[in-house]
């Protein structure tokens, strides 16, 4: 699988993502600079990793959404390309309106760096095919602005069309959006990740790329990457 990781000034989890991708593909991903105007030819997956693009001094991801490379990424999306946005990458995708909704400050108004449990809401996408629907996996999260919000209509449409990818839950799968222990950043419907309409773009706040090695505490995040390889390379 040929993957490209987009690096904005202030991106800081590109190395984590490269390690995760290299681990499952055996191939180092291509790093793409924010001022580039084209993606490398024949890319199977574009990843927008975590960090603080342009310092996130405006709204998180707002500046990056207008970076030169984003024109090529929009075209890639329009052609049906697969895109994964994690953390700041998810924020950028919402700011670029490639995914619906927005990420507000965490409900507790503090940065949260801890493990959380995510429930897989469907298993027939390139991102989730190595899990079964309802599976719960552990993953680190590390963000100050992960509180997912959208208009009621948008939330309803997301729910009705099965475009919620992951939800914050208890270890046993129980969801309670009102419980800060279970839904730590206060996201609507405990949404941790969403899909685009064509299910080829996925954005999520937590960091499965940081849990792909038993040495670092587990491999719970690995199915995301092995599933993508299988889906995109066949």
């Amino acid at each position, binding site marked *: 699988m040929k993957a490209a990781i987009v690096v904005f*000034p*202030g991106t*800081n*989890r590109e*190395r*984590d993502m490269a*390690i*995760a991708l290299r681990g499952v593909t055996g191939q180092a991903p291509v790093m793409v600079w924010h001022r580039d105007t084209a993606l490398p030819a024949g890319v199977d997956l574009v990843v927008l990793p*975590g*960090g*603080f693009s*342009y*310092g*996130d*001094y405006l709204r998180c991801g707002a500046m990056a959404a207008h970076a030169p490379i984003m024109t090529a990424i929009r075209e890639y999306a329009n052609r049906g390309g697969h895109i994964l946005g994690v953390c700041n990458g998810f924020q950028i995708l919402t700011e670029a309106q490639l995914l619906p909704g927005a990420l507000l400050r965490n409900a*507790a108004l*503090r*940065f*949260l*760096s*801890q493990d959380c449990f995510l429930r897989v809401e469907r298993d027939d996408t390139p991102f989730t095919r190595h899990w079964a629907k309802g599976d719960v996996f552990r993953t*680190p999260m*590390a963000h*100050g602005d992960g509180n997912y919000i959208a208009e009621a209509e948008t939330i309803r449409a997301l729910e009705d069309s099965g475009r919620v990818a992951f939800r914050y839950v208890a270890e046993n799968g129980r969801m309670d959006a009102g419980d800060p222990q279970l839904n730590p950043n206060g996201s609507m419907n405990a949404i941790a990740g969403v899909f685009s309409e064509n299910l080829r773009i996925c954005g999520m706040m937590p*960091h499965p*790329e*940081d849990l792909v*090695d038993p*040495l*670092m*505490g587990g491999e719970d995040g690995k199915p995301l990457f092995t599933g993508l390889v299988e889906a995109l390379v066949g």
Partner: protein
Amino acid sequence: MSAKAQRPVDEALAREFGLTAEEYGNVLSIMGRTPTFTELGIFSVMWSEHCSYKSSRAFLKTLPTKAPWVIHGPGENAGVVDIGQGLAAIFKMESHNHPSFIEPYQGAATGVGGILRDVFTMGARPVANLNALRFGDPNNPQTRRIVDGVVRGVGGYGNCVGVPTVGGEINFHPAYDGNPLVNAMTVGVARQDRIFLSAAAGIGNPVIYVGSKTGRDGIHGATMSSSEFDEDALAKRPTVQVGDPFVEKLLIEACLELMATDAIVAIQDMGAAGLTSSSVEMAGKGGVGIDLDLDNVPQRERGMTAYEMMLSESQERMLIVLRPDRTEQARAIFDKWELDFAVIGHLTDTGNIVIRHKGEIEAEIPLAPLADQAPVYHRPTAPAQKPQPMEPIIDPVGIEQALIRLIGCPDLASRAWVYNQYDSTVGGQTVRRPGAADAAIVKVEDTDLGLALTTDCTPRYCRADARLGGAQAVAEAWRNITATGARPLAVTDNLNFGSPEKPEVMGQFVDAIAGMGDACRALDFPVVSGNVSLYNETRAPDGTSQSILPTPAIGGLGVLEDVRTAVGLEMPDGCDIMLLGETKGQLGQSIWLREILGSQDGEPPTLDLAAERRNGDFVRGLIQNGTVIACHDVADGGILVAVAEMVMAGQAGCVLESPQSGMRPEAFWFGEDQSRYIVAVRDGQALADLAAAAGVPCRRLGRSGGEGLTLPNGSTISKARLVAVHTEFFPRLMDR
């Protein structure tokens, strides 16, 4: 400030700038004339306590700094040690105490930023941050404000630059009410053949300024950090710098990219005293002169004077001496990262620093006497007051109640509320996160090597006996690294004390260094970098001033050849839980004594450095060969607190047996005897045999398993209750 710039230079102005009459006299004799306003500013910051170490230098020299694995000891921007495979760990700890009281968020944030620069300026990619924090009484309303700001500042900066914050420590004590301690440590990794130093060389070579623009922030910050606070401390907010972690991140990447070329001759960050200290130190170390034209300095504000630019402590700036033919190559890299890049001067053979601004020479100072004639003081010392002897003890509560109170008390309660605001996983190399082991474990990317990192100090021991406390801080750092299976290599020290002009404080300082030296020598654990912070005092409205507890914070670094062998606190079911090291039941200065009886009396526990080494080397060997499956050193709170921490760290509970120790239960369970470890092993008897052969005291405590912590009397405290009590303190203090 510009109005002030018009003032004539005289002794009164020198005093305002923090120079004594005698020091000003030396300035006059060096210069052979009255210095200019800018020159006086340069002398005053270079000769400030913060930059010159004038009260401490003579004593710091006594610390051991060498070992076969030490590549660069004190004197460079950070210490450098060999970790094998051609790689080096570069690390240092530095204080930002005074700014953090005045403006907690920016004070702490720029503390993190400053220490990061000390490390990447030497060519290392920063791989971990730690921080040792000391706050005032939790019941003091100021404490909450300061904790909140400091924690947000540490996180705000570290999270954004993408360096994981993996460890540290926090204490509370009223002595820090008006003077919290923020000691930030950064660890980086570099190739041994690509380490960059600060000594300038090559007459005519260009001097380059990169990073953020210079503004009026932080002017005289170094001088401010070298004096006591008065009641107007908060009015000093304009001397606190403002950090921009985004620019720091760009600066890290740009510098590392430049460092992959052969363009750099010398490089140093602009830290305390900004452009002054960086240019003076780089030229001075290289034995060359330096000529700077401030018109070319990137400026954020209009109308800045030479004095303001030389003394500004604007953050995220570096000074580089380049090979002359590499200027355009370097410029292209900084352009890519959208950072300012300006040629602001060149090296000369005059031995002077010359500062030009708007066609005028604003300063011309011979560098050699500026460095060589910096004041050195042997200030008078006096013995500190010894603590009262302990009264006979009557345990009013029993061990179960005491345990519950101890694990919930401010000094022992869970720090999760704090470290859950720090990104500890970015980089993807964090093997043991905060709280999971006695030292944080970070893998060295693309190798099997691991770094074990810790910060330690027990200020209440230091107050009771500074020499013992200094030794204990070093020993505890060594012990914490050992308890993961790593080999301790070296330390960085951050010596936080009160005013050196108080003889008893100076006495504490001298004694603490002597104790540190004792331990460093006994444990082959040299000091490779460090920082001194004096004048940590708070002046009360009545004019008296209170010194902080003597706090020689130690940052320790160890290496694991194979990071997979590291162990943490988490015990599997069905292990024998054994105690290694001698238990005498010493309760003097213990947390139990303070929390249960409200007493800060007694001698702190004794420290036998030979036993420390013997016990530690024994445990480390057993971790490395897989015999020991989990390990925790016994520290604050004694054995029972340590066992409770092991239960809370994992799934398995623990069933304790009656120790048959012949001593009172509270002395056995809560005494803070040093040099001890609790280990989980499959076969306790086999361990006891090995320990006996090695001359290491060993006794069985119980067995892992069950749902909670079962005390010798059969009473079980569920894990849920332990965790609830343990995690209550911080949210109750901060989220109300």
